[in-house]
């Protein structure tokens, strides 16, 4: 059985405070703290690129001793902000810099905030279908590359980070059945325009998340034969504090879903594994993870702790 064996997160040490930007944007501090929730944003150092974050996260994982890098047979990088122009794929660049084996597949997955949950399914299926024992799932989507600092809809939200997840046949977390979906009629609500900058229709994204994500979580629980009161924690993509609170409230379990990203921001596909690495408690045995955003799309599954 393939599942999650270890997770490491790489959060750059540099932080940008949102507080000083508030007057120019016409946003109150109470709105920032109570609704957006992001007080400081993590920023990758000047002169570094997506692959640098990936390599740092992977090396942190290897340093933890969960696996020898020579055992890795599959490397997936989830990003929509690759090095250069995306050719070659960032995963190939990371493969080379990590010194992985020549018989290790390396490919990118172009997904945003759903990317981690989607890629859990992709990597586990890839390993199982090819009788492979260990794969590395890396997330890194530094939105500092595409944010307009004057856009009040997006400039206070996003932080840079990367994570590395080892999937292997010696898992700590068992993957449950998944629920996926896409509403392409809303694709334009979250997209990079011809100006190279991210544009977001906040109301459309909010409505999509508030309506679709609770239903996806309910379907996921049904498929896994688990009731909501049997779940210890719900780890939601950290879009903003308000959307996390809204989804948890509509599910009727505000105590099970928290906003963790106040000191580093919405890190896109890294938001869920950062919490799995450092935020969940040893007593959290059943954890729902749900990503939602770019697409607009959602992806949800149930994780069950084995150790």
């Amino acid at each position, binding site marked *: 059985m393939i599942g999650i064996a270890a997770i490491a997160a790489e959060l750059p040490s540099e932080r940008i405070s949102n507080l000083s930007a508030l007057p120019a944007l016409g946003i109150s501090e109470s709105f920032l703290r109570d*609704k957006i929730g992001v007080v400081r944003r993590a920023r990758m150092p000047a002169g570094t690129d997506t692959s640098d974050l990936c390599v740092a996260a992977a090396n942190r994982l290897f340093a933890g001793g969960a696996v020898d890098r020579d055992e890795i047979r599959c490397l997936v990088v989830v990003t929509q902000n690759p090095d250069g122009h995306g050719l070659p794929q960032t995963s190939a660049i990371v493969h080379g810099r990590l010194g992985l084996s020549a018989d290790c597949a390396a490919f990118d997955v172009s997904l945003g905030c759903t990317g981690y949950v989607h890629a859990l399914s992709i990597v586990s299926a890839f390993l199982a279908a090819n009788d492979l024992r260990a794969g590395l799932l890396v997330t890194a989507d530094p939105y500092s590359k595409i944010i307009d600092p004057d856009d009040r809809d997006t400039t206070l939200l996003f932080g840079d980070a990367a994570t590395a997840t080892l999937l292997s046949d010696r898992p700590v977390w068992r993957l449950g059945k998944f629920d996926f979906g896409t509403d392409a009629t809303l694709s334009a609500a979250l997209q990079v325009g011809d100006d190279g900058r991210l544009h977001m229709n*906040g109301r459309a994204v*909010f*409505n999509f998340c508030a309506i679709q994500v609770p239903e996806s979580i309910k379907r996921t629980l049904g498929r896994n034969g688990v009731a909501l009161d049997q779940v210890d924690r719900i780890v939601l993509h950290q879009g903003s504090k308000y959307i996390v609170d*809204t989804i948890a409230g509509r599910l009727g379990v505000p105590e099970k879903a928290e906003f963790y990203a106040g000191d580093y921001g919405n890190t896109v596909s890294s938001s869920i594994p950062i919490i799995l690495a450092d935020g969940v408690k040893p007593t959290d045995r059943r954890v729902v993870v749900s990503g939602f955003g770019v697409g607009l799309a959602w992806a949800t599954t149930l994780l069950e702790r084995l150790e």
Partner: protein
Amino acid sequence: MTITEQDLRRVMQKAFKTMDVSAIDATASLYDVGLDSLDHATLLLAVQEEFGVTIPDEDVDKCQSIAAIVDYVNAHGR
């Protein structure tokens, strides 16, 4: 279907449990009585779900008070 101001206040109270919705002037701007843009989005989503009306982005500015939302729903509701 026609809705009343009381119908809307009931939906609003459900969305904002700690707010005394009964004390809000029906013609006052919702922003002047303490709602922000995210609260406004939450209210309009609740209105859409409760009354089966779709409020497109270009009509959001027409829905800035309790009275205005009631009028909008009554003009566009199913």
